[in-house]
């Protein structure tokens, strides 16, 4: 198994009482709640945490994109990736991902990733996402075109990476008379593409297609949902005439370790509850799922699934749902090994800084996880796991 350190870079200094006066930590919360002096320190600290991850032997360090929210301060994740490309040496730099439909020029995403591929010595893993629903409010992009733009931008980027330019691209949403990337990417045929998702059947089918075989990354979701998604991937792969490998599946999960189970739970409680109840707070389904963002049947399923427990998560319900990993190193290690046996993923993305978690606590978490959990996992994918349905 490969082990990664996933960072959201939240605005950890958020004044929760102030934020409660607004209906969301996204889109509508005034940026007067953001203090640039604190912001400077946070960026410095968070980049340092990922650099520490590189030194401690994580297989990869991960950034991602979110807009106009306290949940994550990386509207341009490639800027952080560029800084990491210079300051780190070993770890893969994973940008999970860029929100393709939100841009009007996907060629620029192809260009930026190609630059990063050079600057990192071919160490990048790219991620393609649609952006979450609220980002269609904050980016003005029509959500009813979200799927079409995603597929089209993806096609254009892959072509830009792999075909000799200049060539012409005439799509429904994107038209270019000249596509001719300078630089072309280092990795051949192109940097790996991973697809983070919360279990959309449509996305799984698309990822598992024989011509793509993209690594599917299940993000922050209850254990049964994740298991179902991985099983769906394997099933889809079989339909396409091949066996899905563990390397085609990743699981992203908030993770916290401390000396004992009890200490870990006690220390994590406040931060993980703030994460799910405050940082992921939306006033209504409308902000989370704008019209046409998903098909009507998917929207109805998501409405059923998503909005029942979100505002009242406790550390106990989160543990029960299998949404998080928390405990002593032994407990967390055993839990991951058990999950891997059942789910068959080959990549674990541990989110080791969570919401308001302060620097000292985060560093202890990173170091303890890297020392006591990670070594047992790295290289621990047994071949027979590949046969698990």
């Amino acid at each position, binding site marked *: 198994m490969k082990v990664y350190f996933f960072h959201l870079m939240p605005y950890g200094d958020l004044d929760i009482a102030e934020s409660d006066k607004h209906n969301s930590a996204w889109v509508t919360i005034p940026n007067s709640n953001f203090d640039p002096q604190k912001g400077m320190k946070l960026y410095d600290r968070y980049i340092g945490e990922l650099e520490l991850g590189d030194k401690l032997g994580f297989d990869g360090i991960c950034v991602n994109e979110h807009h106009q929210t306290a949940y994550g301060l990386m509207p341009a994740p490639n800027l952080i990736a560029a800084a990491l490309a210079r300051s780190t040496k070993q770890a893969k730099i994973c940008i999970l991902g860029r929100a393709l439909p939100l841009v009007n020029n996907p060629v620029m995403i192809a260009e930026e990733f190609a630059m990063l591929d050079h600057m990192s010595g071919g160490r990048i893993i790219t991620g393609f996402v649609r952006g979450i629903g609220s980002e*269609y*409010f904050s980016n*003005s*992009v*029509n*959500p*009813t075109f979200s799927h079409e733009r995603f597929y089209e931008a993806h096609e254009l980027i892959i072509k830009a990476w792999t075909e000799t330019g200049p060539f012409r691209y005439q799509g429904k949403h994107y038209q270019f008379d000249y596509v001719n990337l300078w630089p072309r990417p280092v990795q051949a045929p192109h940097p790996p593409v991973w697809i983070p998702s919360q279990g959309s059947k449509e996305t799984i089918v698309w990822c598992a297609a024989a011509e793509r075989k993209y690594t599917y990354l299940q993000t922050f979701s209850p254990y049964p949902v994740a298991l179902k998604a991985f099983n769906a991937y394997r099933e889809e792969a079989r339909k396409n005439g091949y066996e899905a490998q563990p390397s085609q599946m990743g699981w992203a999960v908030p993770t916290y370790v401390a000396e004992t189970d009890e200490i870990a739970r006690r220390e994590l409680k406040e931060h993980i509850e703030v994460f799910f109840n405050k940082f992921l707070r939306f*006033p*209504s*389904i*409308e*902000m989370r799922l*704008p*019209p*046409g963002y998903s098909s*009507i049947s998917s*929207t*109805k399923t998501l*409405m059923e699934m998503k909005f029942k427990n979100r505002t009242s998560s406790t550390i106990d319900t989160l543990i029960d749902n299998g949404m998080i990993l928390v405990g002593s190193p032994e407990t967390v290690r055993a839990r991951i090994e058990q999950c891997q046996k059942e789910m068959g993923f080959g990549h674990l993305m541990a989110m080791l800084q969570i919401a308001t978690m302060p620097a000292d606590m985060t560093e202890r978490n990173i170091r303890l996880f890297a020392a006591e959990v990670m070594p047992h996992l790295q290289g621990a994918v047994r071949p027979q796991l590949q046969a698990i349905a």
Partner: protein
Amino acid sequence: MRETVLDVRGTNVRMFEAGTGPTVLVLHGIDGLAVDPLLSDLSKSFRVVAPEFPGFTRSPIPDWMMSVNDAAFFTLDLIAALGLPQVHLVGHSIGGWIAAEVAIRSTHALASLSLLAPAGVMPREAPGQDVFLLSGEEGVRALFHDQALADQEIAARAGDELDIMLQNRAGLARLAWTPRMASVVLPHWLHRIDIPTFIAWGREDRILPFSTHEVFLKEIAGAEFLALSACGHAIPQERGAEVARRMGAFMNGAN
């Protein structure tokens, strides 16, 4: 009202139809096709034809429907498919915007134009509520000045399929997401409307501010205006009978 289906160059359009007399084509507002007091009252003196616009209610969004531009040309095709030389065109809200976009392209097939709280022009004052951020119930409440009517509407919709609500939102978003409920250039072309035009607006409209009517009145020569006191955005429900009467008189005068 009877339900009919009209083939518009390969697109099957579900329609409500009732009454006899000159044909009035009514383009529904943001909540899709439903029988309301305006349609019922108009059908006492006119042949009312109310299509379910592609993308709304039970109709998926067609691939070719990219913007209001396409909606306008589709409406011209729809009028042609009705097989009549001319219709009185009425539009409410998003339907008013589409109707205005039809009229700036061609008034050839239009006997008159009636715009009820039309979208399409950016308000000068702070915009009304973002319809896309309102929950189902908030959305209904924001439409009405008279909250007793909103209560009735909420109760009436309780049995509606969620699918219809979601489809209406998606259809609206396709046409009106950016810029929200408006066109940058529509005011520049409104001068082309050279037929009798009637405009009505609720003074208490919380979706599209009342003052926006000034742009339409300024750009459309000789337009008749009806300001509705104690009325929100839901003109067909809140003041359907009164508007049907006033608009009916206007349309008879325009014949």
